[in-house]
Structures are given as C-alpha cells and as structure tokens.
C-alpha cells in the first residue's frame, strides 16, 4: 500500500487515488497539424523508465484534484509531489 502525498490532503493510502501515468504530456494545441504517426505518439507513447518517473495521480476518494508525483519505479520512493502546471522539480527536496 503505497503512501501517496496529495499536495493538499497530505499522505494518503494508494487506494484513495487513481493513477494517471506519465505527467507533462500535453494535448497538442492543433491536433490537425500532426500526421498520423505524431498523433499516435501522443496517444500511445509514454516514457517507461526504470528510476525516477514524473507521473500523475488523482485523489479520487479525497479532494478530487489531479497532481504530479516524482517517484522511483525502482524503489517506489516518492521524491516530490506538486500541482499540475508546475514544472517537475529537479533536485530532491
């Protein structure tokens, strides 16, 4: 049971959250400008690193806010938690 730090509600059990996969994948401003390959890239291609990963979580059973977390996919250690729109923090807190 991971402990996910909601920027607003604080650390809560994983089961309160929805998982949103890779963070910072913006919907293209002008989808029509993308060819099929580029559009497929937006739809399906996601980073899948072993190590630190900026990912989205949704506090579904709490404050219903989406937010971002930097978490190691190797150790599950959470390094940062920050609101959507904010850039991914560089260094460890």
């Amino acid at each position: 049971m991971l402990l996910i730090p909601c920027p607003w509600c604080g650390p809560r059990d994983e089961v309160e959250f929805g998982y949103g996969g890779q963070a910072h994948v913006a919907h293209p401003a002008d989808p029509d400008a993308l060819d099929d390959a580029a559009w497929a890239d937006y739809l399906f291609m996601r980073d899948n690193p072993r190590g630190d990963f900026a990912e989205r979580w949704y506090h579904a059973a709490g404050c219903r806010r989406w937010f971002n977390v930097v978490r190691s996919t190797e150790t599950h250690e959470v390094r940062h938690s920050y609101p959507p729109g904010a850039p991914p923090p560089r260094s460890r807190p």
Partner: protein
Amino acid sequence: MTADAPAVAPLAHRAADLARAGGDGVGAREVPFLAQTDVRADAGSSMPWPLPTEPNTVAAEGDRTVLWLGPDEWLVVGPQGSGADTVAQLQAALGDAHASVVDVSANRAVLELRGPGRHELLAQGCSLDLHPRAWGPGRCAQTLLARVPVILEERPDSTRLYTRPSFGDYIVDWLLDAIGGD
C-alpha cells in the same frame, strides 16, 4: 427541502437496526435532511461565512458548518430547510465572481457516531490516522470507509459520516458488523 413535501430520509429504514446496535462504547444514528451546499470558488472569494482554507478542517459559525473539500471546494452544512437560504446568501456574497453553488442536500446521507469507541470502530475500515495526535474536533476528511467514499467530520463529542445514500445500506451493514451488533 420544502417542509410540506413528503420525504423519506435515506436511512430511515435502518433506524431500528442502528438503535439496537448501540452500546459497546459506540452508538450510531442518522442525522436526516441536513441542508448541504457545494461551493466551488477561488479561496479568496467573499463569502457569508468564513471558509476554512487549511485542508481537511472545518469552520463553524452560527448553525452553519463549512467543511473543506478541496482547494476551491467547500461543503456548507446547515439545519433542515436552510438550503435555499444558504444558496441565496452565497450567491449574493459571490456576486459576479466565477463560482459554483449547488444544492446537494439529498446527495449524501449523514450518520452520527457517538461514544469513546467510535474511532477504533472507524479504524477497522478507514486508514486515516484518527489518533488524537492527528485528529480531533474541527477536522474533516474525505476518505474511504471499507469500500465506500465518505466524508468524516469530527465534532466535540461525535463523528459525522457523510456517504452517498446508495451506499447507505452497505455502510450500516458494515457498522453493525463492526460493532458486533448484527
């Protein structure tokens, strides 16, 4: 709700069960027909009541209690029949500000747990830290109880549990089983 229109509280049919299950350091009963208003607005907006800005806390003034539900969301709880007045006051105060005021009085059933054992009881299905070090009057939280989304509101000598009426029977069954009164 309008006074004259016939209404049935969501958990009225379980009142006897809940009464029977009392004792053992815990008692539970439904608090029916509370007026509940969901407010969405910027934290800075002008309001007829002080809105708690610290997450998961409650502000009370007169017979209105305001629960923090999110950085831009609150639940204003008042006595039966006060909903229309709450909506009117909020809309007046908010004026043209971008905000959302929605009457959700019937959207959640409310149970009140009393007795010293109530936090241990909840701890059987809720993963929040309900120890006095972390929890007490004036706090609220949206979380899960067993498999159901709930709002917990801690009051001086009771805990209020808000849940969707459709989950009411499950929550009551769960409470009765946990209390051992079933």
